[in-house]
């Protein structure tokens, strides 16, 4: 299988249903044996009313696609799914879903971990939170860059 045929990468401009996405992905890759996924959702219960992610059309989705192809080139995956929201989200809403199907589960674990580290700190999204009615932009964290350095 070539990388081009097996990566599904989407920038979601409206809420998506991670359970439905995962069910469809797992069914498509019933020959793989194992599916690892990461679901990131807006944290509830911390006083954050809303979270907004902004993207830049010419760069954001192409960057996600390059990331998917890099992961597929590096590990033996039967399939890779990346869905990332942009826009304003409420607490509990999904932000990002990454899933990898592989014959050997270690490949799937590492590929999802890799994709998440890169989505968090090396993809074209800008994030702000609304706390008590006030929006504030989130600066990149040192921890994110340390995560990224693991793969260099």
């Amino acid at each position, binding site marked *: 299988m070539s990388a081009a045929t097996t990566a599904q990468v989407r920038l979601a401009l409206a809420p998506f249903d991670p359970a439905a996405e995962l069910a469809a992905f797992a069914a498509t890759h019933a020959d793989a044996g194992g599916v690892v996924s990461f679901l*990131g959702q807006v944290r509830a219960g911390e006083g954050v009313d809303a979270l907004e*992610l*902004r993207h*830049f*059309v*010419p*760069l954001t989705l192409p960057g996600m696609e390059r990331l998917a192809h890099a992961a597929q080139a590096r590990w033996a995956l039967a399939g890779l799914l990346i869905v*990332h929201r942009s826009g304003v989200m409420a607490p509990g809403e999904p*932000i*990002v879903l990454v899933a990898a199907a592989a014959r050997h589960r270690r490949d799937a674990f590492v590929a999802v971990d890799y994709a*998440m580290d890169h*989505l*968090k*700190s*090396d*993809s*074209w*999204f*800008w*994030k*702000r939170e609304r706390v008590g009615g006030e929006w504030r*932009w*989130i*600066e*990149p*964290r040192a921890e*994110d860059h340390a995560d990224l350095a693991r793969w260099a």
Partner: protein
Amino acid sequence: MVKLLFLGRLEDVAGAAELSFPLREPAALADVLLMLPPVLAEALFGPKIKLALNGALIRAEGLTLTDGDELAFLPPVSGG
């Protein structure tokens, strides 16, 4: 016309997501920035700000804008 796009927190500094203005002849980026409020120009010129000209990443050094260009200012990302 040239269009300047301000991503992330730069939109707050600029007070708008984009600014458009006429440009009769090609102008160096430094000269274009001189036309902006000093606070904004300073924010746009920071060492961590990346640039995309007509959707493609480009270096600031020696950059010249011509009529029809769209230049995006991209602060550090904090996504996902």
